[in-house]
């Protein structure tokens, strides 16, 4: 799981172009949207694309992203349960 968490952090940084952020800067339970990293609705869409590309998970409803992308931990949990790649 730790490996997946680190992998997800690196992907978030790359896909969302967070130039100044290191994996260590992202707390596993910190909110990603609104406060915390301050991501927005476009970032959520990018993460949906990343989910399909890297893990073969198709998220059809954009509003489902709210719960899935709450924090790195919720993402890791969702990926480990649903990945097809």
């Amino acid at each position, binding site marked *: 799981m730790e490996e997946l968490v680190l992998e997800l952090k690196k992907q978030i940084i790359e896909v969302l*172009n967070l*130039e100044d952020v290191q994996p260590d800067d992202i707390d596993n339970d910190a909110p990603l949207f609104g406060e915390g990293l301050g991501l927005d609705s*476009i970032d959520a*869409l990018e993460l949906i*694309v990343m989910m399909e*590309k890297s893990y073969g998970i198709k998220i059809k409803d954009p509003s489902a992203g709210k719960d899935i992308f709450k924090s790195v931990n919720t993402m890791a949990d969702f990926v480990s349960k649903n990945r097809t790649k």
Partner: protein
Amino acid sequence: MSQKVYINAATHISLQQPLSEEWLVSPVMPTQPYQRSQDPNFRDWLNPLQSRRMGKILKRALVTAQKVMLDSGISQPEAVITGTGLGCIENTELFLDQLCREGEEMLKPTYFMQSTHNTISSLIAIQQHCHGYNTTYSHKSVSFDSALLDAFLQLQLGDIKSALVTGNDEMTPSYFSILQRTGYIGQPGQVTASEASAALMLSACRDNALCEVESVTLHSSHSNLQLPPSASLDAVLVGTNGMPLNDRLYHELAGRLANVPILHYKHLFGESYTASGLGAYAAAHLLHRGMAPAFMREDGVDVPLPLHRLLMLNHSDSHNISCLLLCACS
């Protein structure tokens, strides 16, 4: 009675030293067929979190806009109007490339969202929380001129009191090679193909203005073009770029203005669809100083040219011609 219109501030990011008029004293003389703009340190101007999705064209547009708002003291212009020939071509290509090579699945929304031409004007407005008139023109080499015309009309009519007018174009290496195939840029003997970000703040206020805008017009044909009387002009500023097909019309039109010295600018600022924005930026500062440096004179006379009233001519494939008449504020 129409309102007078002034340029209160103007800046650029281009082949020359960014956000500066240093080029008037020690210009860079570009020689490459293709060269990208000199960028400022974007971190001095933009929040990295907010600008992380932005390509160069967007960052430059936001910076030049911010600078003229600062310089003019107008932080909430009543209009934000942009001209861009190719729009955000880098993001357009990224999306198109993905589409062509990888197919129609899992495409990056950011590329699409940042590819639309009006992203530039919108982001400026979002940054400034500016609810005023907002639009974008894209008409090849008269894109900036169209934006300027719109602002000028509204100011003249008294519909608005201030307008931020910007011209922005970027040139990626791949799109340069595409356009080179068409003969538009990258040809032997031609000025450097480059990029442009020019921002001008126009208003109805004369205080501390760089110059006055007397008129802006666009024409489809040069045959019936009425030019101002030669005796009333100190110079005509043209967009010659070393290509005979392009330069011919400029010389023909300038030739109708007997004894009016010709100035040129693309040997300093390069060629792009919004190079005329850089020409207008330069003209404003030349008029403010009351003179054009010798290296802008086409006649090779090695003495600065005194300036009070200047006509700038620009055309797009000899098809669309713009005339911009500017004068000093003395």
